[in-house]
């Protein structure tokens, strides 16, 4: 099934809230081989001026990929997840993510470009606190490989 070109411009509104937990920050930090104490020790984070444990710079991918999952699961999208390769990623932090944050993500499909038998899809997640405060903007480009790509 080809990628639906009408996806471009689509916006998926925020779904469920993502609760940023201390143990998730610790687990994710271990998984990316981070060692800075501000990910693990509340006193260390607070001594740098943060309210609680600080998330690693790529932590927002968890929230962004949950938002992307809405697009991939959308029966109208035509995306075969097993043929998805990550092509580009960007994180812009309006402020650091800390434990205790309750985040939502609004997903924008910025671009859909046919590439050979596949397609390059660029999505942007606008991640905000429940108060509406902007926290991070993430941009992802995924390549959905066609047969033989």
């Amino acid at each position: 099934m080809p990628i639906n070109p009408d996806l471009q411009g689509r916006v998926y509104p925020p779904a469920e809230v993502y609760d940023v937990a201390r143990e998730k920050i610790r687990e994710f930090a271990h998984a990316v081989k981070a060692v800075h104490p501000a990910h693990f020790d509340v006193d260390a984070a607070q001594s740098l001026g943060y309210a609680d444990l600080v998330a690693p710079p790529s932590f927002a991918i968890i929230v962004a990929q949950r938002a992307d999952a809405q697009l991939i699961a959308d029966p109208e999208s035509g995306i075969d997840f097993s043929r998805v390769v990550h092509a580009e990623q960007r994180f812009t932090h309006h402020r650091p993510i800390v434990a205790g944050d309750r985040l939502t993500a609004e997903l924008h499909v910025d671009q859909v470009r046919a590439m050979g038998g596949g397609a390059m899809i660029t999505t942007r997640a606008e991640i905000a606190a429940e108060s509406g405060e902007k926290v991070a903007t993430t941009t992802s480009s995924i390549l959905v490989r066609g047969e033989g790509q």
Partner: protein
Amino acid sequence: MTGGSVTFEELEAGAEIGRREISVTRSDLVRYAGASGDFNPIHWNNDFALAVELPGVIAHGMFTMGAAVQLVVDWVADPGAVVDYQTRFTKSVPVSDTTGTDEPGALLEVVGTIGALNAEARTARVDLMVTNAGQRVLTKAQAVVRLA
């Protein structure tokens, strides 16, 4: 926040901030899958990866991206100082199965260099060169850090 020990004035474009090797095993990929929620089987099942025309199990691009920036975090001594971070994933990182041994399944090398300085914003752009077996796996890997 700017809790680190690096100050803007001491920096020079072109200077190296450091380098490190990152060993990657299949077990690291399983751990990253669990921590991130990205359970695409191309990152843990060899048969599945081969069936979708990959060379075998490959690392999550986001594992490589997330691990590479740790050089910058440790240099600036404040994870919250990284205000922007981007990359292109140009080459996949095949990770061989070395389970039960002390051998890495892949070995990444990361070198960080000051790419640009912005005196008004007091930010530095750190360019990361990330290679696997001598080949670049990330392109335009750039982290912007805010400094004291």
